[in-house]
């Protein structure tokens, strides 16, 4: 269904391109309770940024400031250099994809009409909409003939979230905001959707901000992780730096609960190449060690683990 090599070719995240979103000294308080305190953060074009934190840490609040669902108490948000408040909020929202845990498909709309919602708001022609709906349904592994004219209540949880993704992606948004999008799914489906989504995201270079409390999910998906605790950003960096070079005790405590898996997840197969006789092919070199270990022989397992310890040592 998917041409993996093709997608993986585009893996490299562009980090010299412009900043899509900038938070400048953002604070938020509800009736005297400070939730976020003086946060500054840049979101680069095309990157996959994960806002990681325990529940109640304010990560969702931060996310919702991007599309204006929540206003900052203090500070300023810039969109491509322009203050957010100067933009037409309706137009801005229409250029954002938004995916949430409970999806929020319109229950009275068919799958087709749900996905076609944004294109229709943007006044696309119906023929173009139909093309795009078909395309995106197939890219997200949804059978058009079977599902397009069903109501959401006839779908499974995984299908609903895939429709939610199709709805968010169809207009090729400037930025995609996701709030715990996979948390309600069972583990096997969750993993599959994550992978499918990540491939699409990398191919389309969609700037993505995802909120999650799940360390493994953050490590397996993110280009950059922003760990929020105690009203502040505790560390901003790649999964590897977060796991192996925690900036402070907040970060190390957050990782400690699942240290080993986090390390395996943060280690990509390609990182191990210098310590192995053979190299991996393109198809798998970006897989994490964690996922590789799930289906290898005992022998290969010990070889990989040896390489892993050497790599870790050298970090």
């Amino acid at each position, binding site marked *: 269904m998917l041409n993996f090599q093709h997608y993986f070719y585009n893996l490299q995240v562009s980090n010299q391109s412009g900043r899509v979103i900038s938070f400048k000294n953002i604070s938020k308080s509800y009736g005297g309770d400070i939730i976020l305190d003086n946060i500054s953060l840049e979101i680069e074009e095309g990157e996959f940024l994960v806002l990681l934190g325990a529940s109640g840490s304010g990560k969702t609040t931060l996310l919702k400031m991007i599309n204006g669902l929540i206003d900052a108490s203090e500070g300023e948000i810039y969109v491509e250099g322009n203050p957010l408040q100067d933009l037409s909020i309706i137009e801005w929202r229409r250029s954002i994809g938004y995916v949430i845990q409970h999806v929020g498909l*319109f229950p009275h709309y068919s799958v087709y009409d749900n996905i076609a919602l944004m294109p229709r708001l943007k006044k696309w022609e119906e023929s173009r909409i139909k093309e795009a709906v078909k395309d995106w349904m197939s890219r997200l592994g949804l059978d058009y003939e079977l599902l397009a004219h069903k109501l959401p209540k006839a779908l499974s949880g995984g299908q609903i979230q895939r429709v939610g993704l199709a709805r968010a992606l169809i207009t090729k948004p400037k930025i995609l905001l996701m709030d715990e999008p996979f948390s309600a799914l069972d583990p096997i489906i969750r993993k599959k959707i994550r992978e499918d989504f990540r491939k699409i995201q990398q191919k389309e270079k969609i700037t993505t901000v995802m909120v999650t409390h799940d360390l493994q999910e953050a490590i397996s998906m993110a280009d950059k992780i922003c760990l929020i605790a105690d009203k502040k950003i505790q560390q901003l960096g790649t999964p590897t730096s977060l796991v192996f070079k925690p900036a402070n005790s907040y970060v190390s405590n957050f990782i400690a609960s699942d240290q080993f898996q986090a390390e395996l997840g943060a280690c990509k197969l390609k990182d191990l190449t210098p310590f192995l006789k053979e190299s991996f092919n393109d198809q798998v070199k970006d897989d994490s060690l964690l996922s590789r270990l799930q289906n290898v022989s005992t022998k290969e397992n010990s070889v990989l683990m040896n390489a892993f310890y050497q790599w870790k040592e050298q970090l």
Partner: protein
Amino acid sequence: MKDFITFIDQNKAEVLNQVIEHIELTLISLFFASIVGIGLGIFIAGRKKSAQVFISFVNIIQTIPSLALLGFLIPLMGIGMVPAITALFLYALLPIVRNTFAGITEVDTAVMEAGIAMGLQKHQLLLKVQIPLALPYIMAGIRTASVINVGVATLSAFIAAGGLGKFILQGIQLNNSNMILAGAIPASLLALLFDAVLGLIQKSQLKTIKRVLIGSVILLIGYFAFKLINSTSFTTDAESKRMKGGFPSEFIYREDGLQGLLKAYDFKLDYVEMEIGLMYQALKQGEVDIISGFSTDGRIKGYDLTILRDDKNYFPPYEAAPMLRKDILLKYPELKAVFQKLAGGISTDAMTEMNFKVDEEKRLPKDVAKDFLLKQGLIGKEPSEGQKYSGLIKVGSKAFTENYILAHIFQLMIEHHTQLKVEMKIGFGGTKLLMDAMKNDEIDLYPEYTGTALLLMLDPISAQKSTLLNSPQKVYDYVNEQSQIQFGFEWMPSLGFNNTFAMLIREEDAKRYNLGNLSDFSDFIKQP
């Protein structure tokens, strides 16, 4: 059962007509209530803080008794379809507003959040998301309202707005159970029908609901247009000084009521059927021009009305007197002495004055009765304390002011002059009901009028009637004798006033057209 079917069969046209009127009342009010109710529901859904205030307000409307609401509306809107529809509209409002509000506020927050985040504007959210998703709730509200309205619409007959209430109202007053059923059964069926049809719509798909709603709106608008064109042409034709009557159904259907009156004075009159309590107000407001009242009614004074003299002595005398069951008199002979004290003690003026105090000065019948008796020296202060009761007397009355006052006068007299305890069972809907209650020992006495007894109870032959009519004493003697023979009821001495039927018009009309008696009125009506 057989009787009922024959009744329906004989009155097919009228039943059908009332059913159509009933549907008209229900649907028109429902239509406006839906528009306003949905609008209000949407409006308050966006303002949750003030929503509770609004909902409490429509809640209060719901708690106003239907008859009281109709009464309030007469000074504002007169009688007929308009106030009836207004009242029904107000009753239908609550379920629709509440359900719309609930439907809109209960749209899944994730759906709303997704909608907002995708850049839907407020009106788009409302039209594409909130209203469609609230529609099943809204339909449920309309469905509840329709059932309420079919029920309340039966009361529209009180203010001459037609509908199945006409049969029910007449049936109660004439004690004709077939007639009551002929109104009640179709009304129930209608309620079930509305409920079923709207239930069906409510459960169908959104698209169907939309189509049905749009279809019915178009149909109703077409219907209004049709009505409007028809009614305007009608009113221009009927632009005349013609007088319109407003009478309670008992008066319309009684042998000695309207039909006989029209025959005796030889004229024709357009009239509508009305509840007694609302008639005076309607006359004052100019909704009707002539009503059938009673000569001692306090409102004659209060509303500047004039009695058209009965110059042909069409109406029999209506002398008021207590009517008792004979066996209670045998058991408590002391009652005779009590009512002897009252004999001739209340003049027509005194009675009118008391009625006026209750109707216009809004005093309680009991207080007015007590004041009167104290003033006349018929009772002392309080009955002596700690006395032991030797028996119980049940006093009844009909449901109008004068009868209430008289019942209280009886109560006070009995309690002050005997050892008997009085239980009040007042407010019976019609003479027949009181008669039945007397026969079944549910009451022991009530204030009755000789004329009523003569014509309604004893059903005399017209020839005999006419010889009696000129003498109140003869009528009294006749009814007393017949009551004892036929029912075992005995009349106490007459109280002293004659509350006969009185045809009432506004004083200004009487002056303008120089109308003094019923013959004048007849001549005036017959003028080209």
